[in-house]
C-alpha cells in the first residue's frame, strides 16, 4: 500500500454499533490517534485505513502509556 493512497475514513455507522469485544463495554473514538478506546478493558483498538481492528491481540494496553 503506497503512502499516497487516500486514507479510508472509518464509517460513522460503525462507531454507533461497535463495542469492546472483551468487555462488551462502550468505546471512545480518538480521531487524532485513530483508535477506539475501551476504558472498561483498558485497551485501545487501532483503526487502520478506516478499518477498526477489533482484536484483543492487536490492541494497545492503556497501562503502557500512563504518562
Amino acid at each position, binding site marked *: 500500500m503506497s503512502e499516497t493512497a487516500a486514507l479510508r475514513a472509518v*464509517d460513522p*455507522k*460503525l462507531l*454507533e*454499533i*461497535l*463495542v*469492546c*469485544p*472483551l468487555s*462488551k463495554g462502550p468505546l471512545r473514538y480518538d480521531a487524532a490517534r485513530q483508535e477506539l478506546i475501551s476504558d472498561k478493558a483498558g485497551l485501545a483498538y487501532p483503526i*487502520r*485505513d*478506516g*478499518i*477498526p*481492528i*477489533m*482484536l*484483543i*491481540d*492487536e490492541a494497545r494496553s492503556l497501562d503502557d502509556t500512563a504518562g
Partner: protein
Amino acid sequence: MVHQVFDRRAVSRHQARAAGAFQEFSFLAEEVADRLTERLEDITRSFPIAVDLGSHGGLLAPRLRGQHGIETLISTDLAPAFAARSRGPAVACDEEALPFASGTLDLVLSSLALHWVNDLPGAFVQIRQALKPDGLFIGAMLGGETLKELRECLVDAEVELEGGLSPRTSPLTDVRDLGMLLQRAGFALPVVDTDRITVTYGSALKLMQDLRGMGESNAVLERRKTFSRRNTLLRAAQLYHERYAGPDGRITATFQVLWMLGWAPAENQPQPKKPGSATHSLAEALGAQVCGVEASSPLDDTSGNG
C-alpha cells in the same frame, strides 16, 4: 473453559496468506455466497443493518448492495489483510469475540467462516445477542463429510508409512448438533439443512494446494509443527487416485455445506400453542372422518386409486 481445538492465530495466518491471491481459489466461497444470496431472496422483510461475518474479503457485499432494504453492510474478517480487501465498511474481528453492541443488527450472514471457531455455542449466543428482536441469522459452514476422501487417504498413507496418526484435517460439526446448538443459543424457529458441492481435480496434490490457497489449511492445535513428510502426501495422493478417480482420471472432492437459519426471538413471531388449546379438531379441518383403531389403514383406502 472451552476446549481449544483450533489455533486461531494459525487460522488468521492462513487467511492472511490467502488474502493476496484469493480470487484464484475463491470458487467454493463464491458458490456458497451465491447460494446464500438465493436463500435470502425467499425472505421478504428488510434489513437496514447487516453483517457478513467472516466475509473472505467482502464476498457478499457486492451481491447484496441495495437488496433487501440493506443500508449498511459490514464485512468482517479475522485477518485484517482480508478485511481490507472488502469494499464498504469493514471490521477485523474474531468470531469468538464479537464487537457488536447488543440489539443493533437486523441481519447476520456467515459464509464458510464458522467451521474454524472453537466455541461455536458461544459464537451463536453472541450473534443472537447482537441481533435486534426478529433479526435474522443465516450461516453456512463446512460439515463433517467435507473432504472425507482426502481424510481417509491421508490417514491410510500415514499409518502405512509412519506407523501412527497425527490430527491432520480439522474436526467438523455434525448436522444433528447444529439445530440443538441454535436452539440453546436462544434462536427462535431454527432451521438446519445440508447441501453438497462436488469439485473435480487433476490430482490430490492440486487439491491440497487449493485448500492452502483458500486459507483452509489445517489449523488443528495439535498439528505437527514439522511439515508433513512428502512421501506421505504422495502416497495419499496415489491412494486418492486409486479410489476416487473417474474414467477421465480426475479425482472428486466432496464439500458438505451445513445451512443454518434462526431468528432472534420477538413478541410478534409465530409461537407454538399450548397443548390442548385447540378449538377445532384436526379431522374437522381436513374434512376427514375419525376412525377407530380397528379401521383399516389409510394406505389401503388409497391403494385403489393408484
